[in-house]
């Protein structure tokens, strides 16, 4: 287990370094980052000043290591647009996005796991067909359009829910649904496939033959094993959702990392953009690393291979 964990950890670190390199070189896509930061009405002097202040006049390799060194000590740079430290702004916004992601994941799991289990218990019946239809429709709904439809019906026509802001828990209902429904098909299909496989295995037959109550067999023996791959899928999807929340946060005007990212992109706030991509990527790397460890802990077969 320790060897497995160390192996995974070294891969994760290597991935993180590569990602930091990619994130760093991102700002050079515009050609000259100093020019991009200065904006259109800047004079040559302004550009030269920015170049010096941000250190864009130094060799790229020096710039990368100084950026990485600062990032490792928690200094993600300075946003001249917001006149504050990038790290401060990000960690101020991060909890909102985390809450949104957690609510969305909670919604997705409470919808998809029971549906998947029901579908697996009675394959090719009406329930199974229904679950499949939900999955197919869910996969075809663009989340931003779905969000607008919900705003129209529940926010404007029925006036049940607030449509913008993040002040109360009511504000999080529609965004969580809009963000979470998109992953329900994947989780549901995986739960269904896992349950079908487990339910036809020998130990379930034994458990049934012993005369255990069907509900005990279903939850204590079957679901426990079928849920293992779902756990790692959920971790991975949580990471995807944090990245995808940019669309949802923009629509619902939620003051989280996604909206910050969108605003930073619109005003070409390069240090902020870099830092957000880096933070979200690292978060995803940590999540997958933990999911791998959890999987290996739950299923000893993974550790060996």
């Amino acid at each position, binding site marked *: 287990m320790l060897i497995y964990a160390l192996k995974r950890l070294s891969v994760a670190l*290597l*991935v993180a370094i590569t990602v930091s390199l*990619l994130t760093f070189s991102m700002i050079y896509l515009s050609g000259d980052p100093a020019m991009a930061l200065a904006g259109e009405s800047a004079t040559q002097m302004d550009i030269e000043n920015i170049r010096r202040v941000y250190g864009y006049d130094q060799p790229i390799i020096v710039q990368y290591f100084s950026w990485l060194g600062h990032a490792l000590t928690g200094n993600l740079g300075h946003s001249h647009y917001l006149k504050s430290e990038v790290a401060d702004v990000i960690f101020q916004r991060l909890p909102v996005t985390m809450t949104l992601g957690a609510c969305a994941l909670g919604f997705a799991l409470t919808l998809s796991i029971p549906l998947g289990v029901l579908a697996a218990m009675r*394959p090719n019946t009406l329930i199974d067909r229904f679950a499949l239809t939900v999955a197919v*429709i869910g996969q075809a709904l*663009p989340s931003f359009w779905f969000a607008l439809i919900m705003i129209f019906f529940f926010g*404007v026509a029925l006036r049940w829910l607030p449509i913008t802001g993040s002040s109360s828990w009511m504000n999080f209902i529609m965004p969580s649904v809009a963000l979470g429904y998109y992953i329900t098909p994947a989780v549901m299909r995986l739960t269904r496939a896992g349950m079908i496989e487990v339910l036809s295995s020998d130990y379930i037959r034994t458990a049934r033959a012993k005369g255990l109550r069907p509900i005990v067999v279903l939850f204590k023996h079957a679901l426990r094993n079928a849920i293992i791959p779902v756990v790692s899928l959920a971790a*991975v999807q949580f990471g995807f959702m944090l990245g995808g929340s940019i669309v949802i946060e923009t629509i619902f005007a939620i003051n989280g990392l996604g909206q910050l990212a969108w605003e930073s992109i619109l005003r070409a706030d390069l240090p902020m953009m870099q830092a957000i991509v880096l933070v979200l990527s690292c978060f995803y790397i940590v999540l*997958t690393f933990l999911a791998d460890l959890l999987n290996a802990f739950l299923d000893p077969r993974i550790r060996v291979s």
Partner: protein
Amino acid sequence: MGDTVQKIDSVPVIADRTVDEPSPAERARKRMFSHFGFMFGAIVLLTIFAIAFLAPLISPHDPLDQQLARKLIPPVWHEHAKATWVHPLGTDQFGRDYLSRLIYGSQISLLIGFAAMLISGVIGTALGVAAGYFGGRVDMVVNFIITTRLSLPVVLVALAVVSLVGNSLWIVIWVLGLLIWDRFAVVMRSTTQQVRNLDYVAAAQAIGCSTPRIIFAEIMPNIVNNLIVVATIEMAHAIILEAALSFLGLGVQPPAPSWGLMIAEGKNHMLFDPWLVGIPGTALFILILSINLLGDGIRDVTAPENRN
């Protein structure tokens, strides 16, 4: 003599039995035509393709022609004095015919979906097949590249890159194509791993076939079904991403009639004219649905054993 007669007699019997049995291709065709999702997806998708190709012929107006005197006319099914068959789906806030914009918008969605899928397909398949066939170090490196790619948030990176490089249709296509190859790589890798251990690959290696020949003549034909299924998923993925980018204002630029952009432009009028958002969104939904159903259908028809 008696032996020969018996042999001659027995041949037609065997032949008859073979004729009764439908060939695998026939069975696949039969499954195809009786598969609801496949037929629905194929017919709807073909219709949308036809609409996109025939756009100049069938669209009633110029999609970019602004007539401010005729702005925000509701669609014909609204009981409204201004509703007219001249503009069956109404007009937007600039007085542009909504049906024509919808028709021309299908070109953008299909072009982006198809082109981005081709780019990502080439990258992902090359990486996946190499990893699956060669294994060892190559597999390790490819796995590393896939993990790195997965840890980058797609929407965020696409938005950032488009904003830095500039946004034209082809830049959006390239950015998406370069970002969404991961599923191709993952699926092609595992499929190739399964195929490469089969006897006919070993036989080809034994008679001294070159590696490219084995990959293209022995491996590729046997993984192409999975490739098509992933291709449909990624085409739908690219179309949704383009719509989301355009919706956020960083994809296809106005006045182009991208469906995502139409939703964004209609958003501000949603309160009184919800159809401005409803119509392009429904079009997007139907397009994605038909592609997904077609993909699921192809999987069921070509490999019915993998259904669950």
